[in-house]
């Protein structure tokens, strides 16, 4: 019997192309400023139109400064890219959630605002010129990243030439221990299956641990599917999914809501669905996890020692085989990104931060994933908690996850980061070093001034 992946794929398959690939209808297309300008230029050059402009939505996230969204941006190239997107959206009738200094709109990281406004819904095919599009699978969509030429194809035809993926079921069962979060779950999955273990697959996450997760937590898991090589990752839609979507701006309303829920429910993988592969992970074995290397599979439990022969990674990071990551002095702490920049991430970190202070040598940033999260967090007083503790409270954007904006590491600084990639140079300095971990672990590192086992500090609170 079919999986959700197969049901959604079949519902969106237009025809078999002469090449043998499938033409797949794209239900939701999300666009940002970095990977789209060349695509718009190409459709203009060919004189192609955009047949479904109401199925594409755009925002500005990668290059937006987080200190102020006042226009024009001081960075002339950032301003040029934003202006180009504004012009392109206007020409083709595409809705743009634009930056604005008052932070009163819906601008934000593309993978945060899609679910937040209810644009992302179960059973959709979703494409975006951004690898972390897998995030949207948390709501039961088949969502994947594409390149700029494919952005062109979606704009021009609302479809893509694709080959289907195999499906690997990943069950995580049991209760997570205190101090262990969704980020630790996905880092553990990637560590076990490898950074290329998912090539050719979509990952279907299930099991009691995933069932018990909030939609925000499921988004953290699905977000990093691509770091494990899987182009898409998803969770079957359930009551939590429907409760999350109900009442959101673009979600169906009234009678349509009930019909939508019925359709969404029918799309979940059948109980006897067959999978191409199946992996089971025991939640009780998962520790707060920290990366030590230059890809997201190079991680250890915080109490564990590094065990590797990868000299390139050890040399770049300044670690030795057998060393523990705990105790590593950090320079920068970053809470944010499409992985961990949602309201619940900030609230959980703020709970931990309250009454403590960032170590004097650490530069610490909190960057909400969207303007709406900024507003809600401020209404809850989270901004005050963070600033009182010595964190900088910023505006919405991708910020230091990929440093295409003024937020960057300098020299070989070490960053404790709630983002998704620890690649060489990822955070803006060619010699900069990134340690990925959960937002609460980042907060703990900021306060201790070094990587620390958050569980020891949690005990302090409870003692």
């Amino acid at each position: 019997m079919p999986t959700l992946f197969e049901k959604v794929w079949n519902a969106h398959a237009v025809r078999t192309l002469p090449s043998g690939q499938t033409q797949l209808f794209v239900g939701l297309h999300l666009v940002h400023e970095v990977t789209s300008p060349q695509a718009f230029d190409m459709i203009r050059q060919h004189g192609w139109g955009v047949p479904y402009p109401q199925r594409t939505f755009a925002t500005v996230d990668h290059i937006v400064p987080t200190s102020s969204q006042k226009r024009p941006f001081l960075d002339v190239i950032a301003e040029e890219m934003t202006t180009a997107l504004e012009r392109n959206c206007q020409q083709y009738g595409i809705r743009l959630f634009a930056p604005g200094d008052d932070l009163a709109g819906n601008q934000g990281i593309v993978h945060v605002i899609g679910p937040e406004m209810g644009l992302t819904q179960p059973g959709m095919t979703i494409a975006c010129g951004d690898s972390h599009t897998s995030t949207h699978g948390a709501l039961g969509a088949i969502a994947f990243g594409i390149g700029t030429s494919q952005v062109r194809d979606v704009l021009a035809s609302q479809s893509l030439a694709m080959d289907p993926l195999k499906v690997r079921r990943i069950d995580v069962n049991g209760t997570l221990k205190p101090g262990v979060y969704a980020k630790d779950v996905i880092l553990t999955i990637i560590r076990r299956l490898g950074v290329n273990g998912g090539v050719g697959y979509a990952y279907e996450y299930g099991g009691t641990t995933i069932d018990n997760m909030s939609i925000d937590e499921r988004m953290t898991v699905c977000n990093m599917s691509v770091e494990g090589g899987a182009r898409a990752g998803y969770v079957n839609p359930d009551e939590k999914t429907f409760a999350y979507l109900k009442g959101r701006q673009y979600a169906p309303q009234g009678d349509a809501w009930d019909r939508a829920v019925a359709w969404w429910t029918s799309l979940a993988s059948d109980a006897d669905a067959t999978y191409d592969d199946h992996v089971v992970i025991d939640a009780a074995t998962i520790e707060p996890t920290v990366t030590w290397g230059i890809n997201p599979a190079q991680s250890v439990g915080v109490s564990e020692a590094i065990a590797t022969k990868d000299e390139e990674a050890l040399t770049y990071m300044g670690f030795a085989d057998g060393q523990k990551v705990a105790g590593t002095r950090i320079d920068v702490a970053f809470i944010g990104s499409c992985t961990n920049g949602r309201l619940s991430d900030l609230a959980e970190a703020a709970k931990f931060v309250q009454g403590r202070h960032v170590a004097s040598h650490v530069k610490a940033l909190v960057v909400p994933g969207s303007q709406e999260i900024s507003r809600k967090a401020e209404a809850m007083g989270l901004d005050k908690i963070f600033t009182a503790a010595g964190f900088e409270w910023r505006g919405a954007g991708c910020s230091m996850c990929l440093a295409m904006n003024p937020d960057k590491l300098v020299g070989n600084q070490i960053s404790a980061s709630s983002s998704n990639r620890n690649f060489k140079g990822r955070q803006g300095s060619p010699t900069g070093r990134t340690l990925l971990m959960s937002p609460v672990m980042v907060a703990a590192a900021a306060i201790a001034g070094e990587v620390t086992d958050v569980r020891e500090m949690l005990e302090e609170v409870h003692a």
Partner: protein
Amino acid sequence: MASITAISGRALPLRGNELDTDRIMPARFLKAVTFDGLEHHVFEDDRKGNPNHPFNNATYNGSAILVVNENFGCGSSREHAPQGLLRWGIKAIVGESFSEIFRGNSAVLGMPCFTADKASIEALQALLEKAPDTVVDARVDTGVITAGSLKVQGNLPAGVRDAFVTDKWNPTSMLLADYDTVRATASTLPYVAGF
């Protein structure tokens, strides 16, 4: 556009697993509204950090084929990475494995990414390090890669292979043909037609 049945030329061996697209094309070079000039920034930070980087070795200038290891092009979906390689002069890549998105992006640009087993890649890289002038011939239709007396079986996904040899690797016009079929599919989707 034309069919692509074979790529022939000198080749550059680039060792290392998980060479991600941030390394192929650091993010600061994505701050532009065109792909122009990306050929100047391929592996820029890796090259600065390592004078012996193969892309710094003039012997390999003019190479048409790149020979890599595992999970090449992982990470960010930025097409700027394959665009940079293509503009540098690379026309095909042979490797142990590729990230899905990178391989798809390259295919749409007319740059096939062949996979081959570890031993074959090792033999190719070792040969090219010893004899950089070796001309490599990669056949899209059969997957056979020949380098001097060395013959390696490469693989392409069948749909991508057929698209190259039948001149259908750039899909937009195919996607726009019989457009009523797209509209028909869309109209069966409850969220498009209205719940």
